[in-house]
Every structure is written in structure tokens, then in C-alpha cells.
């Protein structure tokens, strides 16, 4: 059963990664916020979850997360619009972002869709993309890769 598979994902080894250990979740659906928070807490992260109506930049500054996971299709403000705003803040642009959406597949999004939505070349692509419904293993792998890359860079 799929449910068991989901439950059975291993707790990731978290060597060499850490510092604040905090992930900011931006998602309009409260059930999905609850879900993501539970999953990430189970993996040993600290989480802060907000919806798109809140001012994201101050929230990011306040919580100083290691990573941001953000939905794209949100009714009152799109994740793309928030993403652009974040990348335009020099101090926040370094925080890696993983976008999540049912909007398109990962390959398609990174190869085409992103540049269609954000033609401005100075804005770099997000560090990761995970399609909804969420494959938790894929999500955790992406988080691991992104954080490792960040660690190396620093």
C-alpha cells in the first residue's frame, strides 16, 4: 500500500548539514501545511508554515530558514511572484528554494516553464522542484541535495 511506503521512508542521515535546521513552508492549503510540517518534523527539521497572504520577506528575515519550500499555484499570490521578490533581496537570494506544484512535471518546469514565467535572466532558477502529489522520497532527496550543495558552496 502506498500509505505504508510513505510511512516507511527512512530518516535521512544528516551529517555535515545543520546550523539552524529550519525550513519555511509557504502553502495556501492548510491541510498541506500540516502534512508538510509533520513530514519535515519527523525528519528532524524545525518548520515554520505560512500562507501566501502573509508578508513573506519579513517572515523569512525573522525565521532565517535554511531552506524555503513553496507552492506555486496559490489563489491570492503566486509562488512565482514571491520567489521573484525573494531573489531580488541580496540577503535572501542565497536561501535555497524548492518550489512545489501540480502545475507541471519537474523536467518540464526546470527546462521550459520556469523561464516562461520568469524571463528575467538575472533571476536564477530555484534550487529544486517537486511535483504534487508529493513523492516523499523524492522530496527528501531533493532537500538533501539542495542542502549539501549549499553546504559545499559555503
Amino acid at each position, binding site marked *: 500500500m*502506498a*500509505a*505504508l511506503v*510513505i*510511512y516507511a521512508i527512512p530518516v535521512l542521515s544528516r551529517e555535515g548539514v545543520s546550523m539552524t535546521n529550519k525550513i519555511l513552508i509557504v502553502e*495556501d*492549503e*492548510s*491541510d*498541506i501545511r*500540516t*502534512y*508538510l510540517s*509533520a*513530514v519535515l518534523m*519527523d525528519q528532524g527539521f524545525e518548520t515554520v508554515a505560512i500562507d501566501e497572504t502573509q508578508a513573506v520577506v519579513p517572515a523569512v528575515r525573522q525565521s532565517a530558514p535554511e531552506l524555503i519550500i513553496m507552492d506555486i*499555484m496559490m*489563489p*491570492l*499570490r*503566486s509562488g512565482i*511572484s514571491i520567489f521573484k521578490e525573494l531573489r531580488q533581496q541580496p540577503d535572501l537570494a542565497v536561501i535555497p528554494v524548492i518550489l512545489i506544484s*501540480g*502545475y507541471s512535471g519537474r523536467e518540464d518546469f526546470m527546462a521550459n516553464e520556469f523561464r516562461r514565467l520568469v524571463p528575467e535572466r538575472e533571476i536564477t532558477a530555484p534550487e529544486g522542484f517537486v511535483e*504534487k*502529489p*508529493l513523492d*516523499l522520497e523524492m522530496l527528501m532527496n531533493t532537500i538533501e541535495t539542495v542542502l549539501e550543495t549549499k553546504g559545499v558552496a559555503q
Partner: protein
Amino acid sequence: VNRPPKRVEKWIQTQLFDTVPMAMAVIDAHFEIVYANQAFDATFGQWQGRRCHDVYLGRKQRCRDCVGTQAFQTRKPQVSKQSCVDRDGNQRLYIKHTLPVIDEQGQVPFLVEMCTDVTESDQIKREYQLLFDQVPCNILIIDRDFRIVKTNAQASKIMGNLVGHRCYKGLKGLDEKCVECTARQTFEDGSLHTGHHLWRTLDGETRHLHVITVPILQDDGSFETVMEMAVDVTKTLRLEDGLKFAHSFLETLITTAMDGIFALDESGEVRIVNPAARKLFNLSKAQNLSRDQLNAILPAEFWDQVRAGQPRVYFPETTITCKDGSLLPVRLSGNKLNINNKSKGMAFSIQDLSEIKRLEADKLEAERLAAVGQTVAGLAHGIKNLTTALEGGLYLLNSGVGKGDIERIQKGMEMLGRNIERITMFVKAFLSFAKGREIRAKCNPPQAIAKEVTDMYVARAQQSGISLAFEADQKVAPAVIDYESMHECLTNLVGNAIDACQVSENGGSHVTVRLLERKGAVIYEVEDDGCGMDYELKRKLFTTFFTTKGLGGTGLGLLMTKKIVHEHGGTIELESEPKKGTVFRIVLPRHRLPQPIEGADCQ
């Protein structure tokens, strides 16, 4: 000396004086009339014992220019023209011959004066001269050498003084006679000739003249001169040219127009039918179109207005009856033709709407397909979100069981239940949207629909402290509308408006539903002073499965509304400002409304 026979000599001596028709008088050195004949009596009346200036003019003094004095002094006959007053008090013109009577001593004791009344002939002469000079026509008199002998004032005004010049030189600047010379023809055969000449005038312009030459016959039938009368037709020709251009322009326009054009004269007969109209009416090139035929083709409502004498008729959408009895959708418009306030009939244009109708139907279809496309994308997104939420519920449930965390299990169960319910709602709404039951439009009073929706919401609005009002234009005629569908649209809009007031931070508390009729369109407006929408939100409103209501909405209401409005041939517009409020407007142009279902005509 030449002497007459005896008997005649006696008659001359005794009777001639009294018999001559001119007035004759004998005047002495004191200018007193001492003797006069019967004609003098008849002309000037009583003369005995009076002086000539008194008799002729009623003057007491001798005239300044006295001709008699001259005759006395010079002893030569004088001829003068003088105006005198006759016995009836009329001023008349006389030629006077004043003859000195010279006696044997060479003295002039008397004058004999003869007066000939020339009033009439003088008048005629003057009139003739006036006519000759002022007639709106150039007159030349030309002799056999083609020299101009005389011109009238009109001709000298535009040509200068031409007397003595050869006509071809003076009029045209040529050195030789013209080939088409009308004067030569008249000199040859003595008859009237006409022609078209070009003259070069004083101011260097070229004028077109219509010329007539006639001989000026003498009593014996011979003639040495011809009169050339030339009428300036330059302006006429220019006008004719203008007219010709206007005519050919209009004719081209009418012939090549894509729209049908036809015209009726004041008696109602068909005068013009252009090729496009012929095509519409199914007539061959040569075929005439009678009044009765046209009667049968064009709709009764059209003829009603035409016969009522309307200055303008306009039917944005009506039908004509083709030969085979089928109906063709057309646009018909017409205007009365008035010239100087007199009716000269009517001109009409007729436009085939079948192609436009077909394109409109295609467009409607394309819009519907696009809506479905957006719906499918939106649906996929919605389902993915729901699936994610279900997975979330399962995760909480399973991990809760694993950890023995009852609270987590509880949360997972709730999440599952909530999202399963949501899926049910979603699928139901989607099914009804996708099936999109066929529009069944009938003639309905637009007021009734809005009234019913308003009544339905009044209680809910009141509970939330919101006032809900319905305002309607006085006379909005029934329209072909699917009652159920339009009811659904208004239900959606009014529901949204109440929600917008409830979530507004600015305390919005008014929702107004309006019904208007503007420019041939039925218009519903739903206005609220609730939270309003920003640009981003407005942009998304109709384009995705979009809801701001979280679990409370499916994101289908406005899509459904848009679809129904489109199926009615209408449009939906919105004006909104954050924190000020929103107006949704459904505009239903009457001529685009759907066909009523069978047996449900709308009059």
C-alpha cells in the same frame, strides 16, 4: 425750276399746310406763334397769342439753348431733338426742324417749325440697345471679310474691344479661319448654324461657348453681315463634369458594394437594385424586381415602418424570405431621400448576416472549448492538491499509529474525512459544469429572475447584517433567456458579493442587484462594497479553477457563470477595487440572444 402741275400747285398752296401729319407752326421774331396747322392744334392745343416756349414747355422765359435764335441768326435750318409737353400734359420726344423764312430783302421775319413725335421709336431704340448690350450672351456682328463690325457690352467686357479685328484672331488668337467656322457656313447658305467654340478671354482663360450665327437680312433678302450669338457654357460644362464624376463614382460604389443596395421611388416602385442585392434576392442580371416581389422578400415589420413614413428604418437583425421559402438573416437599414424637402423615395442597404452568424457561432464554440481547456487544467491542479491533502491525512494517520500519537491519528482522520467530502463536492460541481446542460431559452421577464434570486438571499444577507436591494429599469421587455441558467449565474454573483462583504475589513454591508436596458442589451449588475479585488486576482478570476474560499468553494461558480453568459451570446465584465468593492455586469445584447426553443416565440 421744277414746278408741279397747276391743280396740284394750288392744293399745295391752300391745303398742304393743314394736311401734313406733323405739327407745324409759324413763329415771329418775338417767338410768338402766329400761325399753326391742325396737327399742331391736335398736339399742343391752344396756341393763339402764346410764345413757343410757353406752348412747348409751359416756360415763361426763352429757352437757354433756343434753337429759334440760332435759326434767326444763322438763317439756316436747324434740326434738334427736344422733349416737350403735349396738350394732355405728357412729356414726349420730338425731332424739330426749325426753318428760317427768308424774305425778298434777305431778312428772316418768321420761322416755320415742324415737330415729329419720335417718343416710341426712340424708346424702341433704347430698349434694343439695352437688350443688345445686356443680354447674358456675347453678340458679335461680322462682315464677309470676317471682321468684327460691332460687339455688345457683354462681349467687350470679357474679350476687350474687338471691333475691326478678324474674328478668328480676336476671339481665338488664330491667324487663319477656323475649320468649323459657323459664320462662313451662314455666309455660304444664308441659314442659321450652331457650333461649339473655344475663346481665349482678356484674362487668359479659355471659355467654352455655344455659338449661333444668323444672317442679318436686308429688305431685298441679301446680307452683308451675320450676327453671332455666343452663350458661355464653361460653368455648365464644369458642373456637368462634376455631375458626371459624382454619378460614375456613386454608380461604381453601388455596383461594387459588398452590401446590397436598393431604392424605391416616391410611388414605391423599385428603382435601383445593385448586384449584391440581386445576389441576395436571387435575381439574374437583367431580371426586373417588381414591388410585389420585393414585398414578398422583405419582412412585414420592415414594410410596416416604411409605409408609416419613418424617415429612417433600421433592423439590426431580421430575416428575408428567399425564393425557395428559406429564411436568410440580414441587417436592413434605410433612409428617406429628400430633395428640397420633397420626398424622392427611400434608399436601403441590406447586409447578409449568415456568414457573420456562422463566425459568431464558431467563436462561441471556440470560447466554449477554451473554457473547457482551462477547466481541465484547473481540474488537474485541483485533484493534485486534493490527492496531496489525502496523502497528508494518511501520513498523519500512519505515523500517528506508529508513534502511538492519538492526537496525530485524530488529525489525520479529520484531514481524510474533510478532503473526501471536498472531492465529492468538487466532482459534483465539475460534472454539472462539464455536462453543461443544453440551454433551453424561452421568453422570460428578466426582472423575475433577478427578483427571485434576491428574495432567496434576503434572509442570509440579513443574518450577516448585509442589506440586499433590487433595482430595475421601468420597462425591460421580456427576452429569450434560459431561466434556470441565468438564475444560477445571478445566484453565483450574489453569493460572491455577500461573501465579499463578510470577509471585508472595511465593513462592506451593501449588495445591490440591478436590471437595466441599454443600447439594445439587457444588463444585470451585481454590486457590493465588500473586500474588492486586486489586479492579480481579477486576472485569474475566470481563467482557472480558482477559489479564494478554501474548502468552501470549488472555483467553478464564475466559470459556470461565464459559460452560461456566453451561451446567451453575452459578455461578463467586472470592475473592482481592493477595499472598495466590486461590480459584476452581465451584458446580453438582444440580437445575440439564443433562438427560443420550439413554440416559445418572444414578441
